[in-house]
């Protein structure tokens, strides 16, 4: 009996030992597998992600100009925060912080700290590192700081309207900053600095931008104009090298201009631009085979439109070639060309060159053109020389670029693009029309009777056209007190690379004249002489202007 019991006990012990051994085997096996797995999956970079996401602000890639100069960049600044529920002595905190904080934040502090149930408040955002250190050293329980991104614009006001602005959390609210959020997307800021995403490379040239701005400011001062705008655009790609609207805005302080500051007249204002529109009318006449540059047209007979009469040029019945009509800028001449086309074809042509539709750029939507709803006789005539239709200067500039670049459509852009192959480009007018228009615009600059002769830049072959139009007063009537003067031109005229458009708003008369030929044209000349070398177009030795320059 005992032997039987011992036998059972031995069998039980052996079973337990086997179980223990199995347990140990499983345990060691698990440890071995785990060690092997860890060794296999070991991180090779050796970098731990120790940064805490900051849910309040976003990081943004740099914005650069075409030469790599910084237009916008993130830096990290401390923001003072507090946890009211952890503050022991509210009065002590208020007394200690009030002398250190900016007045606005100091004023808000007692109210913010009053609610002890809150766990987080901003005391003062994006302060200097020195101030944050000073507050940190006070050792106030419940008061601390955290790093936030701060968008800086080292170039100051340069291209302020184009660059746009961000809000307090670094989210884009205007211009290229907003475009970047839409295209690239928002990303939460982390404590380590720098957004590793590639920078936004714009087509702007900081040097050209400054030169254009400088010359427009000089023109505003000289002609006592309250505002001016200008754009320099690659006629083939539509890349904008400079875009200025004065008065300028500071992207670092959007609160000063977003709601009621100076608008971007280049894109957000529509204006009747006057006779620069004649290049469109003449191009239409040529492209529809209604006229040739040599076609002679009656420009002397006045045109009656209801109560209004458009004065003729010269005696009644006097004729002038289409070429001379553009060079001398004769209203009755372009009116006659538009009448030959008729309302449908005129309207269709304007639509084809992109002057009737809404335009978009990366910097935002361009204001929709304003034109007559019913395209009657008055519209045909007035639109032919740039009245009765109001467009944003940048929209007209892109239409003009398409007329002088060989006849291909141009979409203005602030972001570098891959060049479109010639076969993929949409034709607007024939190459022949484009060359003819260019020749007439060149003559407008070089001819002694040309309205654009003061745009004759030393060393550069400039082709251009001036335009002067009345500005409507507040009651939307015209009292002739204020005008908008413009010059649109291309250089070098034999194979244009860049288009320049300068607009002065309400320039005052000098020696009794306030027409574009006397203010916008010479301003454009100075702009071209200064900006062309920056853009890689140098004056040719054999292209000095003959005779005296104006």
């Amino acid at each position: 009996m005992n032997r039987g019991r011992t036998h059972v006990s031995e069998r039980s012990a052996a079973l337990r030992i086997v179980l223990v051994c199995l347990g140990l085997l499983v345990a060691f096996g698990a440890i071995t597998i785990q060690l092997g797995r860890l060794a296999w999956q070991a991180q090779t970079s050796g970098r731990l992600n120790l940064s805490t996401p900051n849910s309040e602000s976003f990081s943004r890639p740099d914005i650069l100009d075409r030469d790599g100069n910084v237009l916008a960049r993130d830096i990290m600044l401390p923001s003072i925060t507090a946890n009211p529920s952890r503050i022991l002595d509210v009065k002590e905190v208020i007394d200690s912080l009030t002398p250190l904080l900016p007045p606005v934040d100091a004023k808000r502090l007692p109210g913010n700290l009053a609610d002890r149930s809150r766990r987080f408040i901003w005391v003062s955002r994006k302060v200097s590192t020195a101030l944050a250190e000073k507050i940190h050293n006070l050792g106030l329980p419940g008061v601390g700081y955290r790093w936030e991104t701060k968008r800086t614009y080292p170039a100051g006001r340069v291209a302020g309207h184009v660059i746009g602005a961000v809000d307090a959390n670094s989210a884009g609210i205007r211009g290229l900053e907003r475009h970047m959020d839409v295209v690239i997307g928002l990303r939460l800021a982390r404590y380590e600095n720098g957004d590793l995403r590639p920078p936004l490379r714009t087509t702007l040239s900081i040097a050209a931008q400054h030169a254009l701005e400088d010359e427009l400011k000089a023109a505003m001062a000289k002609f006592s104009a309250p505002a001016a705008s200008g754009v320099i655009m690659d006629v083939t790609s539509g890349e904008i090298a400079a875009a200025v609207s004065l008065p300028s805005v500071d992207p670092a302080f959007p609160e000063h201009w977003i709601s009621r500051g100076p608008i971007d007249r280049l894109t957000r204002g529509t204006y009747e631009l006057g006779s620069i529109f004649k290049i469109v009318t003449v191009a239409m006449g040529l492209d529809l085979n209604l006229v040739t540059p040599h076609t002679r047209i009656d420009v002397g007979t006045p045109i009656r439109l209801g109560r209004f009469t458009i004065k003729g040029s010269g005696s009644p019945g006097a004729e002038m070639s289409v070429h001379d009509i553009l060079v001398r800028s004769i209203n009755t001449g372009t009116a006659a060309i538009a009448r030959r086309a008729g309302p449908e074809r005129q309207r269709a042509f304007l639509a084809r060159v992109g002057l009737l539709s809404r335009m978009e750029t990366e910097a935002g939507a361009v204001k929709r053109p304003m034109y007559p709803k019913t395209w009657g006789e008055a519209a045909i005539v007035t639109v032919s020389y740039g009245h009765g239709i109001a467009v944003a200067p940048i929209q007209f500039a892109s239409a003009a670029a398409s007329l002088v670049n060989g006849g291909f459509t141009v979409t203005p852009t602030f972001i570098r693009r891959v060049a479109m192959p010639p076969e993929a480009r949409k034709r607007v007018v024939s190459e022949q029309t484009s060359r003819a228009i260019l020749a007439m615009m060149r003559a407008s600059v070089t001819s002694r009777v040309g309205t654009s002769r003061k745009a004759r830049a030393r060393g550069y072959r400039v082709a251009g056209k001036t335009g002067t139009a009345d500005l409507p007063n507040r009651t939307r009537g015209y009292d002739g007190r204020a005008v908008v003067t413009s010059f649109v031109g291309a250089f070098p005229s034999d194979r244009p690379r860049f288009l320049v458009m300068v607009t002065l708003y309400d320039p005052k008369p000098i020696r009794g004249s306030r027409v574009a030929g006397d203010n916008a044209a010479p301003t454009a000349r100075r702009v071209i002489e200064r900006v062309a070398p920056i853009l890689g177009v140098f004056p040719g030795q054999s292209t000095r202007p003959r005779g005296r320059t104006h």
Partner: protein
Amino acid sequence: MLRFVTLVSIATTFLTAFVLYATNYQTRALEHELEAAQRRLDALSREVATLRAERAFLARPSRISKAARALGMRPAAGAQYRTSTPRNRESGPEVPDEPR
């Protein structure tokens, strides 16, 4: 035999536990080092970003222009440029001024 196996197993268990503890300790030490390095890196990155922004600020055209004018300099005039070829390479034959 079984006793020997048991003793070796227990000894191995303790040895493994010790090795794991030591590895864990080293890992924590490395983590601390890495954290400190990361903090230094963050601080340096912040400084670099700020310095780059400052450099761009100091090189802004309005400041350079003002300083250059104070030194009596002016924007280069067209006549100051010379090309190595007799004609502007950008240009072809000139467009006639008047229609033929």
